[in-house]
């Protein structure tokens, strides 16, 4: 199976759907059309280039496991709390089915993976969110895993590295999902007060309740090029202000200019950059 037929995880825009219909001769499993330059890219080329378009540099969304593999030393990752699953407390209509299809689709139990790893031999607590699981939305499990990650890291005096990708709070869990914002923020605060380092890497998209909690609470905030990062989604803003937004609005470069992230790091340089930061904070080898 190719892991980068990312079409499958996304709703087709009318434009994409049209183009897709017009190219029935291209075997879709072999190629992926780049959202950035609209070129058809051979999946093997894409995968060989860390899922970054070799033509235009567009960073495709990648799975949480691929994220961790990208930065962790080979074989160094030990997963924590892998068994945690959601209890549908509110018995929200359609939620059980949605969870099942997301589990099937992503191969994961929930929208965040946490654990311990080494980066250039330096130990850290690590979390990656999963875009193909309800777009990384934060419900009780994501909140719990992130909180436990910080709590364990505080106890073991480890730095934390988190890769965010999230549409925000998971509304199927109602107020309990909102409470996760406070809960995770409290866990970050205690880790921070213990004098420990937290690095967040914001990837496309990072919005809503995750932006308004642990994503923006890091000591050092990195972002991938062109990642959409914001509180409100662009569609909500357009509906509120009744005007079109300019193209770069809420993208990583915009946030850098406005002073809300420390640096933009292309995927190929992430491991090196994170390693440098860890080392500067006394990462023991």
């Amino acid at each position, binding site marked *: 199976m190719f892991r980068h037929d990312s079409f499958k995880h996304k709703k087709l825009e009318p434009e994409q759907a049209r183009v897709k219909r017009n190219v029935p001769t291209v075997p879709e499993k072999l190629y992926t059309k780049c959202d950035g330059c609209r070129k058809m890219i051979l999946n093997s080329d894409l995968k060989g280039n860390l899922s970054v378009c070799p033509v235009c540099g567009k960073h495709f969304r990648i799975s949480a496991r691929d994220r961790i593999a990208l930065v962790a030393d080979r074989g160094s990752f030990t997963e924590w709390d892998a*068994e945690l699953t959601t209890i549908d407390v509110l018995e929200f209509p359609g939620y059980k089915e949605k969870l099942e299809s997301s589990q099937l689709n992503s191969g994961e139990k929930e929208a965040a993976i946490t654990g311990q790893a080494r980066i250039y031999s330096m130990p850290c607590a690590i979390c990656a969110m999963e875009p193909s699981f309800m777009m990384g939305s934060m419900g009780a499990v994501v909140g719990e895993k992130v909180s436990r990650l910080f709590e364990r890291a505080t106890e073991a005096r480890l730095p934390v590295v988190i890769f965010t990708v999230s549409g925000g709070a998971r509304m199927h869990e109602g107020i309990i999902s909102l409470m996760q914002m406070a*809960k995770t923020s409290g866990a970050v605060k205690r880790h921070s007060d213990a004098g420990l380092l937290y690095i967040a890497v914001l990837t496309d998209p990072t919005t809503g309740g995750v932006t308004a909690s*642990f994503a923006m609470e890091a000591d050092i905030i990195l972002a991938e090029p062109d990642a959409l990062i914001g509180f409100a989604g662009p569609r909500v803003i357009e509906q509120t202000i009744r005007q079109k937004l300019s193209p770069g609005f809420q993208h990583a470069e915009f946030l850098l200019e406005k002073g809300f992230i420390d640096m933009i790091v292309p995927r190929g340089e992430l491991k090196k950059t994170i390693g440098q930061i860890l080392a500067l904070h006394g990462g023991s080898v």
Partner: protein
Amino acid sequence: MKAWERVQLARAKGRPTARAYIDSLIDGFLELHGDRRFADDKAVIGGIGRFSGMPVTVIALEKGTDTKDKVMRNFGSAHPEGYRKALRLMKQAEKFGRPVICLVDTSGAYCGIGAEERGQGQAIAQNLMEMMGLKTPIISVIIGEGGSGGALALAVADEVWMLENAIYSVISPEGCASILWKDASKNEEAAEKLKLTAQDLLQLEVIEKIIKEHADFRDTLAELKGELIKTIHRLKSINPEELPELRYKRFRKYGAGLGGM
């Protein structure tokens, strides 16, 4: 009463807004302005005064009363500078050992260009994190609408209460119906399922107390005042150094009972 009816009551025209509570509960209220970084957000009223003889800091989301006032208050939807003003005043309260009373009434943090440019998400996140560590008592009362992160940014408190007909939710019923079911007519069902009423949230242990709404608003105020006096005295008897630990425990419990444990 149906959840949707509560939603209507929480938003009803003529429902007392934060200013009415401040005027009645606080003696000699001095409004303090500005976030010292960008501007003074009029959707957030902050200041100091005496409550039952004791100096307190009050921070409130104000929707406005008449049309002109509503426009000036941006209908109670704060920008980042509003949340930063709130945090500044909370830190000030901590410095001088004053309890903080937050009054929440907002459909949500404002969604607009300026709000994003100035870091709406970062401002809310900062409040959540700093409120978790604040070494002075905080009580938040949701008096009308408690709209998502924009409400939570003033509700990371030692106790959170709601007026009988207030609502508190991660998303508006309308937003939920249109996003999840692509059907805006399902508002009533969404309101029901989101469990956003004071009665539901008391059961879910998201709030500690419901303040009854009496036919005469003065009676409601009297009840609120009585409860505030009791609780502030209780919280003031706790060593301020221990408050963050208790506050963390309060929020730590949400969603801790999961499958696979």
